[in-house]
């Protein structure tokens, strides 16, 4: 058969190199790691089949080889995007084959259970309320309120224990991952900080009121744990942190300028500091480096700068020119220019963050559109393909009525057409193979039935599609929807290996065939021109 020839003979026929055919061949080589395979190193091929895995003896051997080996059991890969730790754990071999799930999985389940998270949020609120009431009752010596005070104290201790328990649960689920998330570290720090004074008090090390105050303060800090719970607050804080991170160099430059002006200020105003003049309000403002830094900051916020300058002018030894140059330069540079640069950078950063969020939504919309387009195409195929087949048959009928001179060329064309048709049918059958063998046939049929039902009862979409076809030509339609389709999560990308090889081979040959058809068309045109000349 025509299709039985292999790549080598085809290539030696001296065909011109087509970039598309080459691309298809590269894809084939890449997918099957053909080069490595032919050179004797087969690395990328899967090593074990499912049957081997289910065999108990082989399974034991596998488990001994590599404890952490991940085995993909599900045939249909879903692009979940992020694989969570729990899923990873569940896929491990020793977890799947053991009797009970490990403790970390249970801990994670508890942590993610909505009942538990709501309970924690409730406890945080309760903590704040307890604290408020306690502060109110702190000074009162009313003995009747003593049971109330006791309950408040007990409630505070109870809340603390629950928080510690939560941290222990998080440690159980995964110790190393706990420290990688900044929110968890923050939680840990706050809880430990509020635990410390209580422990100290209990141990009776010191009964000083300082520790009691510290205790109160740390209890308040527990309310900060709320920041990690609510998604909105997290988003805002993350946006702020990101905006600040991009401004690090700017802030460093600002610090450098602070340093320069502070040190220069100490020297410039040495006379002012040393002058014996009596009524100088800002006398000590430039006395040493720390004061100078604070003064520079005061000038940065534009507060009483003119009063400071006039004060400096009171001293005759300090040169007016240099002091005014210093102050005006610092005001222009620091307060006016730098502050506006900081504002501008924050504004652009927030705009970028909002744009990113919008892009996510737009991305989702594009996916929806691509999904619709996909259905339309499947539906269209079913409508158009019987028509084209009919038309090709009609073409063969027409050919009989043409003059003899054209016969040679046209018969070539017809042969190519029939070959191409055969190729196309072959590809269709080989493409339908993967569905059938993996019981995706049902899905395809269901999708086609879905599309037909959708076309029947959602006829507006089809009319819209035909309208869109009428408004836009096919190419622009495809180009518009192509990116969305390409990024879409595909459910049906599983092929049997030999069909895949065949598919690539056929695709390559299709390219060559199309090229040949084009050449034949050109021959036909040439013949036509010759006829016309006569």
């Amino acid at each position, binding site marked *: 058969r025509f299709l039985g020839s292999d790549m080598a003979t085809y290539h030696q026929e001296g065909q011109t190199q087509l970039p598309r055919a080459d691309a298809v061949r590269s894809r084939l080589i890449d997918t099957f790691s053909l080069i490595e395979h032919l050179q004797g190193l087969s690395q990328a091929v899967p090593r074990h089949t499912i049957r081997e895995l289910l065999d108990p003896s082989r399974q034991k051997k596998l488990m001994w080889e590599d404890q952490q080996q991940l085995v993909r059991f599900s045939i249909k890969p879903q692009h979940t995007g992020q694989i969570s730790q729990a899923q990873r754990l569940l896929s491990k071999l020793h977890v799947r084959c053991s009797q009970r799930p490990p403790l970390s999985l249970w801990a994670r389940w508890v942590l993610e259970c909505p009942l538990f998270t709501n309970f924690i949020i409730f406890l945080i609120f309760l903590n704040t309320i307890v604290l408020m009431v306690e502060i109110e009752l702190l000074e009162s010596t009313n003995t009747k309120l003593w049971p109330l005070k006791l309950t408040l104290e007990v409630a505070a201790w109870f809340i603390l224990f629950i928080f510690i328990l939560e941290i222990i649960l998080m440690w159980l689920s995964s110790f190393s991952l706990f420290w990688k998330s900044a929110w968890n570290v923050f939680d840990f720090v706050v809880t430990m900080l509020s635990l410390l004074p209580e422990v100290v008090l209990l141990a009776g090390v010191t009964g000083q009121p300082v520790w009691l105050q510290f205790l109160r303060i740390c209890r308040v800090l527990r309310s900060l744990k709320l920041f990690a719970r609510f998604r909105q607050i997290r988003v805002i804080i993350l946006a702020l942190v990101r905006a600040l991170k991009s401004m690090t160099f700017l802030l460093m430059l600002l610090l450098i300028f602070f340093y320069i002006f502070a040190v220069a200020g100490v020297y410039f105003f040495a006379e002012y500091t040393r002058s014996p003049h009596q009524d100088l309000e800002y006398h000590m403002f430039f006395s040493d480096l720390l004061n100078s830094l604070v003064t520079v900051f005061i000038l940065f916020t534009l507060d009483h700068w003119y009063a400071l300058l006039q004060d400096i002018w009171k001293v005759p030894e300090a040169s007016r020119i240099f002091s005014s140059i210093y102050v005006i330069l610092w005001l222009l540079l620091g307060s*006016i220019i730098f502050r506006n640069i900081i504002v501008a950078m924050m504004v652009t950063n927030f705009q970028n963050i909002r744009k990113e969020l919008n892009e996510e939504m737009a991305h989702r919309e594009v996916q929806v559109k691509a999904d619709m387009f996909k259905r339309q195409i499947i539906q269209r195929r079913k409508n158009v393909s019987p028509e084209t087949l009919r038309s090709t048959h009609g073409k063969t009928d027409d050919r009989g009525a043409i003059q003899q001179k054209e016969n040679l060329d046209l018969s070539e064309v017809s042969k190519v057409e029939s070959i191409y048709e055969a190729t196309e049918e072959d590809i269709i059958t080989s493409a339908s193979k993967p569905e059938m063998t993996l019981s995706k046939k049902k899905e395809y049929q269901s999708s086609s039935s879905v599309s037909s039902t959708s076309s029947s009862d959602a006829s507006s979409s089809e009319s819209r599609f035909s309208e869109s076809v009428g408004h836009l030509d096919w190419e622009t339609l495809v180009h518009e929807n192509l990116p969305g389709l390409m990024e879409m999560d595909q459910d049906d990308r599983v092929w049997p290996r030999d069909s895949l090889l065949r598919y690539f081979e056929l695709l390559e040959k299709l390219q060559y065939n199309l090229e040949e058809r084009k050449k034949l068309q050109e021959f036909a045109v040439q013949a036509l021109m010759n006829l016309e000349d006569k």
Partner: protein
Amino acid sequence: MRKDDEFRAFVKRVIMSCFFKIIMISAVGSNAFFTALWTSYDIRYRLFRLLEFSEIFFVSICTSELALKIYVDPTDYWKDGYNMLDVVIIIITFLPYAFRRFLGKQFTYLHVADGMQSLRILKLIRYSQGMRMMITAMRQTVYTVASVLLLLFLLMYIFGILGFCLFGSQDGGDYDNWGNLAVAFFTLFSLATVDGWTDLQKQLDNRDFALSRAFTIIFILLASFIFLNMFVGVMIRHTEDSIKKFERELMLERKMTLMEEKQVILQREQEEVSRLMHMQKNADCKSFSELVENFKKTLRHTDPMVLDDFGTSLPFIDIYFSTLDYQDMTIHKLQELYYEIVHVLGLMLEDLPQKKPQSLEKVDEK
């Protein structure tokens, strides 16, 4: 000058090396730290030797760096902005010595020269990539900043002259604040930054000037509200533009490198394949086609192959076939057109010899 060239290359390598950079950074950093310490008289008194030593160390390193760099590249040295900064800082560093030596110890502006030593820390900027990028970004906003400042200056000039004429007369007027142009400028700047302006206004009010309130309020609206906030708007626009341009360049660069890498890999693959194919016999005496056939036999139908590729997915196949169908339809129409043309031409050919005798007959009849 061959020996000179080799030596120059050597010196250039020394300058570009990591070790040299580390020396420079540590010298400048330590000197900045010690300059900060020097401000306190106490510490200056106690650690005098150490500070002197660090001072000498820094000056020597800076001068030698300058000399080496000029030696390596005399003409191109002056084109780099950071080198100019180095020269300026060296001049500033030598100023106190020059003053002390030539103008005596009691020169009034000595402490000014001492104060300017704090500028030495600016030498560190050239060694940090992020800072350099930011400075280049800020450099583009300099023109805008300068023009806005110039406009502000013009505005202040107009209002200054106005204020001087209105409020600055020697008797009865507010001489302290509006007496001469310099003081008037300061007053106006104080109004523009809205700091302590109520006190200045109170002074004008005490002297009972009619227009003073309107004057002050109009100026504050113009300078502080409009001008200084226009500043913010202009900077926002510039920052956005520069960030966008920067990101676009980054993306382009990344894409170019990716494309190049892809090309290289593809080329290698093609070469491998063609080599394998043209090699008739390898170690096992099999030709390429036989190898491929053997490979095909190893592929089992039940082995699934999972692909992440758009080219092997069903939507792609569907779209491709639909496109090919369209192509077919177009070609079919084209062919029908050809047949029409041929048919018509054939008819014309048949008609032609019949027409000739007809015309001849007509002529004959005539």
